[in-house]
């Protein structure tokens, strides 16, 4: 009897604490993410040239009608999906590989960690400028093509050919971003008890088997998290096409966020940009909820 009473008291304490713990974050999220998002949805019902807030005119669902018959929207959606589907597995696998290389303590480990993380420490601007010249189509001015030619191969027009531009961005992005996910994997690897490996080693399990039966299951939560954030970041792809290709050539690197940005700011079609943003939002939320369901089912 006394015990139950004590428990319910604790439960109540926990509940109050829980609300106090989530309140600041939730209030801030609502104030600075949900409210602007509601604005976005609201403006999507208007004809709104960004320079003319006074001439704003309600047009109902017209922006959405336009959107679904807009060829560029579907191209941008397709490109976004293509990028995500390819970059997520490549980048996550690369990140896990890097994390395994530097997870144990050895002389110089922090130098190697810093090296792998360094593309994150360098500004995206440098990376984009550097890779634009590395990828340059002319073997006289592009390092990669000059290597290809000296190996007797044909030069590739990495960024100026519609067939290769997106793949070139995918490769660069995976390389640039892997250091970020590596950090998270490293944090996850610290959580796997060492004695499990020791026991396995005593039993004569190979490194590969240890990886399969200890590391991977131990990283389950981390892998889910990493895949999810990589996917979400991939859906938001913007900077690379913005700096390197401006969405071209032939729309091959135009992504949804890039399209939202150019419509909203460059061309001033703010109402229309808001409708793209709203649809984008619906798609991505559906996707991440589905993903949450799938991962929950595999638990």
């Amino acid at each position, binding site marked *: 009897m006394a015990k139950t009473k004590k428990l319910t008291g604790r439960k109540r304490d926990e509940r109050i604490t829980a609300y106090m713990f989530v309140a600041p974050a939730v209030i801030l999220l609502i104030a600075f993410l949900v409210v602007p998002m509601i604005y976005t949805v609201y403006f999507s019902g208007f*004809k709104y*040239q*960004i*320079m*003319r*807030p006074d*001439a704003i005119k309600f047009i109902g669902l017209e922006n959405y009608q336009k959107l679904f018959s807009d060829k560029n929207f579907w191209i941008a959606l397709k490109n976004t999906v293509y990028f995500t589907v390819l970059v997520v597995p490549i980048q996550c696998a690369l990140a896990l590989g890097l994390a395994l290389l530097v997870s144990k303590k050895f002389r110089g480990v922090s130098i190697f960690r810093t090296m792998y993380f360094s593309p994150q420490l360098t500004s995206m*601007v440098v990376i984009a400028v550097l890779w*634009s*010249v590395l990828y*340059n*189509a*002319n073997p*006289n*001015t*592009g390092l990669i093509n000059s290597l290809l030619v000296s190996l007797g191969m044909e030069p590739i*027009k990495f*960024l*100026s*050919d*519609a*067939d290769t531009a997106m793949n070139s961005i995918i490769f660069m992005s995976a390389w640039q971003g892997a250091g970020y996910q590596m950090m998270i994997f490293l944090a996850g690897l610290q959580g796997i008890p060492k004695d499990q490996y020791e026991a396995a080693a005593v039993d004569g399990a190979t490194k590969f088997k240890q990886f399969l039966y200890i590391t991977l299951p131990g990283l389950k939560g981390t892998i889910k998290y990493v895949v999810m954030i990589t996917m979400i970041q991939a859906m938001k792809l913007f900077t690379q096409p913005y700096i390197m*290709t*401006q*969405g*071209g*050539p*032939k*729309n091959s690197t135009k992504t949804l966020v890039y399209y939202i940005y*150019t419509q909203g*700011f*460059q*061309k*001033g*079609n703010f109402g229309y940009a808001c409708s793209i943003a709203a649809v984008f939002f619906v798609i991505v939320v559906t996707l991440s909820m589905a993903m949450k369901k799938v991962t929950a089912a595999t638990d």
Partner: protein
Amino acid sequence: MKKAISMAMAAALALSAGATTVPVMADDVTELTIWSPTDTEAIEAWWEEKLAEWNKENPDIQVKREAIDRSDSYAYDNKIATAQTSNDLPDIFYVDGPQVSYYAANGLTVPLDDYFTEEDQKDFVDSAITQNTYDSHLYAIGATESSVAFYYNKDYLKECGVDVEDLDSRTIDNPITWSELAEIAEKCTTEDYVGTHIIMDHGEGLPYALEPMYLSAGKDYISEDGTEADGYVNSEEAVKTTSFLADLIAKGYANVEPIKDEFLNGACATMIGGSWDTAVLEESAEFDWGVTYYPVNDDTKEAVSPCGDWAAAVSKDCENPEAAGKFLQWLMNTDNVASYAAAIAKPATRISAYDTEEMAEYKEGVRAVFKEQLENTAVPRPRTPSYATFSSAYAEAMTNIFSDASSNEEVDEDYIQSELDTAAETFTDDYETYYAE
């Protein structure tokens, strides 16, 4: 009550922000704020010196400048667009030439006719006044101009057997034609060099540098009144002009992705380059080079050249436009224009500025070419509120066309037509949605 809360909030904010305290000003002092992009040390120093001078002499109009750290001109325009939604615009802000109409048509800027009479305007090169005039009112005024001409590597051209002396001797009445340019490019394209260089920034650089080529062929991008692109940028003449350019790429006479400083680094033999390239070349080029006038169309032989640069405009949020106008009159006087242009190493807009000592180097040589073009052949970009939309649509079309030509190593006129049609459509769509009638 509501007011009390908002005041308390403001006070709390001011405290938490550690906001700089706003000094209480006497009623008869006008404070003006200017936004312009952050610039080189010489220009930053120029601003400091000039504003100190003005503020000392005019205690009733105190001027302050904020340097805006833009990453590119799009970012700067975004800041203007964002600030105007909440009436946060400064009193005076700088605008790039072709944007003047966009801001004017949307009522972001106010006319300056009262402060710059026709007499004053006569001292400016025509192009600078035309570019900044919208709906027959002057909306912005700038100190500097830009131009584009044909640069060539004399040492290398001689090696290739090109008559360099002929190029050197050309005058504004006798410029080279586009097919002469193509011939030179063909002769000079070798394993180590491409023949020529077209600005390939995927942005405003393309419509800016190429417009005279279309004009010389007989049709501008957009109708004179700024309302129509259909039948202009996608006209037969335009397609032909574009095909000519695409052909240079298809044949490998120009790179589809030129690196920065391609000409300076000796990777291309010639280039269609800007007045701003001169200073760097003078400083670092390891070869002898020359500049001649912007090429003309083979049939019409009509000489046209690009122009346009940043200019100052007075915003709708300015409470005392008269003070702003008075300040701009002073800021754009001959001496200030000359010293500003000299500091930024660009050609000046005021004709009288060229008589000053600071502008002496424009009397002959390379810079004289640009000055001559500005005084005689410069045509500003189309003046239409939908220019920004057009510019990005055109740049996108050209990028696609060049990419197509480069991949297939031949020119597909139907594809060019369809891409230019799309650019025209994008313009029409924007114009009709927001500005028609």
